C-alpha cells in the first residue's frame, strides 16, 4: 500500500501555483448512463474557453480548462471535484448537468470558497447549498409553471401526469406543474409513474386513456419519452404529450418517429431564434464540431462565458471577489437568453416552448418568468 501512496503523493500538478494560466475546473459525465448530456455540455464549455483564449485570454492570462469525468456514477463527482480543488488549484468550477452530482460537488466548493456554476442542474436544492453556488439555467418550479401556463393557454383543462420516479428531475417537474396547474383552474385527471429503464408503459397509458385527458405531461427524459409516445398512439391515446428540457435530443425523434409529432416541450433556447447571440453560437458550433448543438451545449457555453465575464469585472480570480462578481451578473446576453442572477443565485430568464414537427423541434413561443 505504501508504494501506491507514493504514486499519489508524487503526482503533484505542475500547474499548481504557476502564474501564466488560470486553471478552471469542469466535471461532466463523459461516460456512463448520461454520457450524452455530459459530452454536450463539455463541448459547449470547451468551445467557450477556446474562444476566450483565442481572443487573448482574461486578465492577461490564458484559461486552462481541466476536465474530469465522473462516469455518471454517484460518489465519483465528489472525488473528482476534491481532486481538482486540492491538486489543480482551480479558481472556479463548471458543472454538472445532473442535479444529483452537482449536489455532491456544491458543499465542497462552498467549503473551499471556490465559485461553482452549474450549467443545467434544475433542482432548487443545488444553489441552496451556499453563496458560492450558481446556475445559468432556470429551475424546476419555473419550468413546471411554464408548462402549466402553456397548457392553460391552449385550453387544456384535464391533464394526466406521467412521472419517472427514479429521476429527481422528473419528480420535481411534475410536482411543480401540478401545483401551478391545479391552482389555476386545471384538473389533474390521472397520475401515473414509471422508473427509467422501463420499456413497457402500456399499463400506465391504458389507465390514463380511461380518464380522457386533453394532454399528457411526460416529465421524464427523452430515453423513455420516445417509447411512451409510441405506445400511447398504439393504444389510441391521441392527446399531445408535454415535457421539459429533458426531451432535448435527436434520439427522441429517432425512437418516437411519427408518434411524437405534435407534442410540446419547454427548453432553454431554440436554434430557430434569429437573435445574433444564438445564430453566432450555432455557426461556430457547427464549424467546430460538425453537428447541431443542443441546449446542454448552449448552457455549457453560457456557464463558461458568465464566469469569464465575472472575472473581467472582478479583475481577479480570487474566490470571494469572483463570487461577488458572478452574483452581480445582470442582463448578460447569453445564448440561452438574457441572464440575470437573482438573490437565490438562480438565473432569471425566459423559456421557449418547442413543438416536434416534421422530425424537427420548431419554435412556438417564449414564456417570460
Amino acid at each position: 500500500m505504501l508504494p501506491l501512496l507514493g504514486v499519489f503523493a508524487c503526482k503533484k500538478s505542475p500547474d499548481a501555483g504557476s502564474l501564466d494560466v488560470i486553471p478552471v475546473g469542469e466535471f461532466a459525465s463523459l461516460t456512463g448512463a448520461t454520457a450524452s448530456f455530459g459530452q454536450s455540455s463539455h463541448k459547449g464549455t470547451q468551445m467557450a474557453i477556446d474562444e476566450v483564449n483565442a481572443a487573448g485570454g482574461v486578465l492577461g492570462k490564458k484559461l486552462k480548462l481541466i476536465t474530469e469525468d465522473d462516469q455518471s456514477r454517484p460518489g465519483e463527482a465528489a472525488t473528482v471535484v476534491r481532486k481538482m480543488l486540492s491538486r489543480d488549484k482551480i479558481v472556479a468550477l463548471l458543472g454538472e448537468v445532473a442535479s444529483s452530482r452537482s449536489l455532491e460537488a456544491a458543499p465542497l466548493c462552498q467549503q473551499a470558497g471556490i465559485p461553482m456554476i452549474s450549467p443545467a442542474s434544475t433542482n432548487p436544492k443545488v444553489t441552496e447549498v451556499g453563496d458560492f453556488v450558481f446556475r445559468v439555467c432556470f429551475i424546476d418550479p419555473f419550468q413546471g409553471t411554464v408548462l402549466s401556463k402553456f397548457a392553460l393557454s391552449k385550453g387544456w383543462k384535464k391533464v394526466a401526469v406521467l412521472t419517472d420516479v427514479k429521476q429527481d428531475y422528473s419528480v420535481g417537474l411534475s410536482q411543480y406543474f401540478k401545483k401551478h396547474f391545479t391552482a389555476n383552474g386545471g384538473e389533474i385527471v390521472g397520475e401515473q409513474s414509471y422508473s427509467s429503464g422501463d420499456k413497457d408503459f402500456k399499463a400506465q397509458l391504458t389507465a390514463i386513456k380511461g380518464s380522457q385527458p386533453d394532454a399528457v405531461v411526460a416529465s421524464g427524459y427523452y430515453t423513455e419519452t420516445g417509447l411512451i409516445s409510441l405506445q400511447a398512439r398504439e393504444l389510441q391515446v391521441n392527446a399531445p404529450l408535454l415535457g421539459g428540457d429533458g426531451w432535448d435530443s435527436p434520439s427522441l425523434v429517432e425512437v418516437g418517429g411519427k408518434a411524437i409529432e405534435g407534442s410540446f416541450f419547454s427548453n432553454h433556447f431554440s436554434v430557430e431564434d434569429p437573435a445574433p447571440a444564438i445564430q453566432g453560437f450555432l455557426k461556430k458550433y457547427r464549424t467546430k464540431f460538425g453537428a447541431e448543438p443542443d441546449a446542454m451545449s448552449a448552457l455549457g457555453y453560457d456557464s463558461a462565458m458568465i464566469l469569464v465575464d465575472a472575472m473581467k469585472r472582478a479583475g481577479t480570480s480570487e474566490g470571494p471577489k469572483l463570487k461577488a462578481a458572478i452574483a452581480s451578473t445582470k442582463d448578460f446576453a447569453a445564448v440561452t437568453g438574457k441572464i440575470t442572477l437573482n438573490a437565490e443565485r438562480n438565473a432569471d430568464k425566459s423559456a421557449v416552448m418547442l413543438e416536434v414537427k416534421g422530425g424537427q423541434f420548431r419554435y412556438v413561443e417564449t414564456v417570460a418568468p
Partner: protein
Amino acid sequence: MGARSGFLAAVLAAFVISGLFTGHPEAAWPLAQLDDYLLNILILAGINVVLATSLNIVNGHTGQFSLGHAGFMAVGAYGSAALTQINGKACLAALSFLGPCAQGGLFVCALLFGAALAALAGLAVGLPSLRLRGDYLAIVTLGFGEIIRVVFQNTEAVGGARGLTGIPPQTTLGWTWAVAALCIYCVSALVNSTYGRGFLAVRDDEIAAEAMGINPTRYKVTAFVVGAFFAGLAGALYAHLIGYISPEGFTFLKSVDVVVMVILGGMGSTVGVAFAAVGLTVLNELLRQAEQYRMVAFSLLLIVLMITRPQGLLGGMGRFFSRKGGNP
C-alpha cells in the same frame, strides 16, 4: 491467535485515538502532508474495506452468496442521516449535556443507529433466505437489495428520488479506519473463535455440519446480521463523507463492486479481501482515464480467476498471519 489479535487491537486503538482526537484530520501528525483528495481516497478505501470484509462473512466464511450488500449500505446511510440530518436539531439538543462533544456523540449514535437498522434488515433478509442455496440465494438477496432501494425511492420523507442533502460531513480518516479496524477485528475474532468454526463447517458441508450438531440456520442468520451491521456502518460513513445520498447510489452495480473485491481478495480470506478493497479503490483512481475498460477488465479477470485460481488473487494470504493457517 494471540499475536494476531494483539496486533489488530493495537492498530484499532491507534485509529480510535486518532479518530477521537482529531476534529480536523490535518491535525494528526502523520496526516499533515495529505491533501484533501488523497485523504478522500484513503477514506473511500477504508469504507470499501468495511464493505468487503463484512460481505466476506456471508460470501466467504459461511459460503452463502449475497448480491444485496448495497441495500444494507443504503439502510445504514439513510438510518444515520435520519438522526443527523432529518432530525438533526432535535437530536443535537437531546445530546447537549455532552457539551462540546455533542456533535461527535451524535455522529457515533447515528453510526450505531444506522448499523442497527441495517442489522435488522439483515435479519429480515437472512430468515426467509435460509431455505435457499447458491444461485437462488443470490437472486433473492439481489431482489431484497432492489426492494430496499425502491422503497427509499418512493418515500418522500427521505427525499425520494431527489435524495437527501445537507448531511453533515463528519466522516474523517480516523473514524473510517477505526471502523475498518473494528470490522476486521470482529470478523477475524468471530471466525477464528471456537464458535466461529461453525461458519466454516457450514460452508464446507452443510449436511455434515448439521450431523455434527451445528445449527446451520443460526450460523447463516448470524453471518447475515453481522455482515449487514458493518455494511450499515459503511453506508453511514459514506453518507457523512459525501453529504448527499440518493437511491441511485445503492444499486445492484454497487453490490457487484463489493462482490468483485471479495472474489479478487479471495473468499474467506479477511486479509486478502481487505487488501483487495484498498487495491481496487486505488486502482480505480489510477485508471480513471481508462474507466470504460475497467469493468470489462474486471469481469474478464473474474472469469479467468474462477477457471484458474478460484481462491482469488490474494487468497491464502491469511496463512501468513494466522498461526493455524486453517482458513484459505
